[in-house]
């Protein structure tokens, strides 16, 4: 058996004592966790065929290195199957990439969670849900992969609530936040392909995001997009606030945004993803008058302030658009980023499946 790193001993006579032992050791997110026994962690590592001491990445501000073995142990605790480990490893690699700047979204007062969006053939192979109850419960792969990411954050990256995690209101997605794109059910180009991978590859995109805001809208595509843009333009999101940005010219933080659109993909047959992105980027904005009323901008109201608009998303490419959600209705969601792009940018990494 490979050297799995530091170990300790647990003694139990039944499953309840085993779970309690994980609580005693402080390794849980609050929910029951499975004990990361040497035997089970080895099964996971054997599946991926990787050295447990190999470093996946580091969070230098907290002086911590995250190894393959630590990722595997937390994936076991989350209830993953060994086959899920490549996804969890890729998500970990992505959130530890320098441009993701994990220390920001994982420490900040702003309530964000790390969203994992899975694309490629592995979505079908692992049965990762991309349809009904997209963000909801009921599917093992989504629930446990997202939970593994959170346990890695808490256990391996020291993102401990009240200690390094200073989030004021938290985020329900911090228990689990993993979805897939229904890329086989739309003519739209899959997210990972747009971001440089081939359709035959599988990839995960990590995004530091607020909670999904459901957008109920029906009718023609432009009517649906009008409602989505309105919901994404709300005051009080990270995008529409000021501060914490070195460049003061824009006045608001701006940032990326994830948009999910569900329903019948035929509705969008005359629209490409790029067209949707362009429409949304141009219409996700807020008037100077509103920004002054909310004291995002200083100064008194002046004539014309209600006709001057400030963009909240820098470029069309900053709209991460995916086709996902139930087929029952044209329901969408918007997920503003935790912060400006200069502070954290979405990162996509390939999922390396053994034997492929």
């Amino acid at each position, binding site marked *: 058996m490979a050297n799995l790193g530091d170990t300790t*001993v647990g003694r139990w006579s039944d499953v309840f004592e085993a779970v309690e032992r994980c609580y005693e050791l402080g390794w849980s997110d609050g929910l029951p966790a499975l004990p990361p026994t040497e035997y089970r962690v080895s099964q996971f590592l054997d599946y991926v065929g990787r050295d447990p001491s190999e470093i996946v990445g580091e969070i230098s501000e907290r002086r*911590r290195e995250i190894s393959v073995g630590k990722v595997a142990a937390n994936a076991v605790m989350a209830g993953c199957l060994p086959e899920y480990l490549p996804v969890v490893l890729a998500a970990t690699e992505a959130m530890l990439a320098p441009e993701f700047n994990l220390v920001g979204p994982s420490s900040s007062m702003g309530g964000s969670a790390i969203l994992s969006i899975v694309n490629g053939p592995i979505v079908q192979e692992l049965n990762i849900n991309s349809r009904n109850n997209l963000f909801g419960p009921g599917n093992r792969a989504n629930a446990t992969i997202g939970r593994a990411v959170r346990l890695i954050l808490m256990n*391996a*990256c020291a993102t401990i609530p009240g200690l390094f995690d200073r989030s004021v209101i938290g985020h329900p997605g911090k228990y689990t936040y993993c979805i897939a794109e229904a890329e086989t059910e739309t003519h739209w180009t899959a997210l990972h392909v747009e971001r440089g991978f081939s359709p035959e590859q599988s990839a995960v995109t990590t995004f530091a995001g607020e909670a999904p805001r459901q957008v109920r809208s029906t009718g023609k595509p432009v009517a649906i997009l009008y409602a989505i843009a309105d919901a994404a333009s709300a005051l009080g999101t990270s995008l529409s606030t000021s*501060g914490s*940005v070195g460049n003061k010219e824009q006045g608001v933080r701006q940032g990326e945004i994830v948009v999910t659109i569900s329903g019948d993909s035929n509705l969008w047959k005359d629209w490409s993803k790029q067209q949707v992105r362009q429409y949304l980027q141009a219409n996700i904005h807020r008037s100077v008058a509103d920004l002054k009323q909310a004291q995002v901008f200083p100064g008194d109201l002046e004539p014309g302030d209600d006709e001057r608009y400030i963009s909240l998303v820098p470029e069309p490419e900053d709209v991460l658009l995916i086709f996902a959600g139930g087929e029952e209705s044209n329901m969408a969601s918007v997920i503003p980023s935790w*912060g400006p792009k200069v502070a954290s940018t979405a990162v996509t990494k390939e999922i390396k499946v053994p034997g492929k």
Partner: protein
Amino acid sequence: MTQAQQTEHVLVIPTTEAIVLPFDGAPRLPTLAGTRLGIIDDSKRNADVLLEELSEVLRTRYEISDVQWLRKPSASKPADPVELKELVEKCDSVVIAIGD
């Protein structure tokens, strides 16, 4: 009902420890008078207001000779190592502060 016998299991520790490398702090300045001050503004709201006031106090009361200003692009990102090196070469002391 009798209690079942406990079995022993080896658990892989899922947590990490901080790897803290030893370092020596910079020597203290015997006086601020005539020295050059560096300021790192973290770009949080009002950090510039606080730090401008501080530099003014240090200039008038402690006679610092010069102030070099470095503004980070984002509060949550570390300062650029190249810019930090330049600041060190231009300054005798540096104040790092967080505003909000």
